[in-house]
């Protein structure tokens, strides 16, 4: 796979430690939601550092997006979040990965479970789902430390406003329930693990097995589950889905290790 120059044309600050980079890659072949790309940086002495990043959105012509979370002591992430200037170039190659993908053409209903920056490839699926003419139900369970750590906060808030009436589910936890008659049959559940925003009836804490079993779509051969986040989170959530009756073959996982930088 060939390395191609990519120009940084815009950025968005997503949180104190995460930045979305909009890159222009002439001739980008397109990609499927969930795929990633390789990024290569070059130092003045010719040294290269390479990392993989999930694509955060469907391609818009030759414009693509990645969201980079700064990792402590990260060699590459620190540069991409804090230094890499608009108008400058780096190299990319991709798209890569054919397993952790959802497409409007082939995809049916989906359960998306994100831990922290594991939201990124799932956001690409969610964005593709919202653009598509389909009523396939989507459930997004997003575990995040604090409201300040929430990625794509405005978009998620807009999603709630557009479709949905915030409603307490029978157990009393906040669940944003989509209208099954509309295109926006998308539910969003936010689990704050450390600090919840004022008014959130769910006390801060880790996502539980019970929540996963209750809020995911019922197990079915037509329901695919995608879990992305740190290893311990993915192990837990994937195991909870299996316990809830989802077939292991219908559960696709991607892990962000603590290292990677």
């Amino acid at each position: 796979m060939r390395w191609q120059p990519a120009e940084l044309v815009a950025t968005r600050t997503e949180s104190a430690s995460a930045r979305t980079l909009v890159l222009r890659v002439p001739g980008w072949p397109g990609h499927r939601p969930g795929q990633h790309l390789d990024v290569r940086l070059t130092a003045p002495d010719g040294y290269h550092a390479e990392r993989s990043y999930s694509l955060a959105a469907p391609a818009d012509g030759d414009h693509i997006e990645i969201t980079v979370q700064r990792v402590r002591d990260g060699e590459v992430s620190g540069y991409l979040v804090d230094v890499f200037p608009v108008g400058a170039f780096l190299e990319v190659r991709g798209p890569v990965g054919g397993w952790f993908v959802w497409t409007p053409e082939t995809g049916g209903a989906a359960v998306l479970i994100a831990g922290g920056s594991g939201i990124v490839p799932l956001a690409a699926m969610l964005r593709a789902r919202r653009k598509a003419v389909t009523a396939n139900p989507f459930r997004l369970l997003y575990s995040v430390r604090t409201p300040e750590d929430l990625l794509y906060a405005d978009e998620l808030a807009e999603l709630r406003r557009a479709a949905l009436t915030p409603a307490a589910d029978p157990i009393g936890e906040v669940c944003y329930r989509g209208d099954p008659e509309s295109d926006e049959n998308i539910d969003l559940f936010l689990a704050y693990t450390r600090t919840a925003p004022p008014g959130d009836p769910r006390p801060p804490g880790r996502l539980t097995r019970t929540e996963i079993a209750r809020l995911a779509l019922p197990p079915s051969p037509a329901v695919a589950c995608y879990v992305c986040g740190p290893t311990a989170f993915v192990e837990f959530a994937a195991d909870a889905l299996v316990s809830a009756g989802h077939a292991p073959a219908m559960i696709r996982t991607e892990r962000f290790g603590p290292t990677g930088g």
Partner: protein
Amino acid sequence: MTGFSPGFQGRPRPQSDRLPPGQYLVEDFPVLSAGPTPRVDLARWQFTITNETGRQYAWSWPQLMSLPQERPHVDIHCVTRWSKLDTRWQGVSLDSLLENVETQAEYALISSYGGYTTNLPLEDLMDGRAWIVHTYDGQDLHPEHGGPARLLVPHLYFWKSAKWVKGIRLLDQDELGFWEAAGYHAYGDPWREQRYQDD
């Protein structure tokens, strides 16, 4: 354009000649799997080698443990770019397992509990280069890392070292495994940086 990534300095350059191109060193042990971690019951665990005529050779857990045990001390390289030096394992050499297997086959397709597969030439499993390991760093191999037993083929990218290994089919024709069919390299030599299909 004056060059790529202006202002990027990078870390001090690793001096190790044990680091393949495009890799960086880690101290911890990252986990990568495509699905949930299967829980495998040792009482029902079985490892099989099936040759090209369909003849099957099988080992139970106690049978595996009764074979000569080796302690490979190796470097491992993941296609996601981390490398880990000096990992210590215990297990059975594939040479011991293949010793009495009749075959003229040239290819092997590894399969795992949970449905994962990966392919490699049979010769890469021979001559002291591959093991079925059950112990890492003196402890039972954790399920996240492929326990109760995984394949260890450290001279290839680590996705070839199938976790939760269940069996090997010996084949006259190469058959692509899970990641290989999804665009990753059929062989995966880290020293030639064979990450993707056309590398």
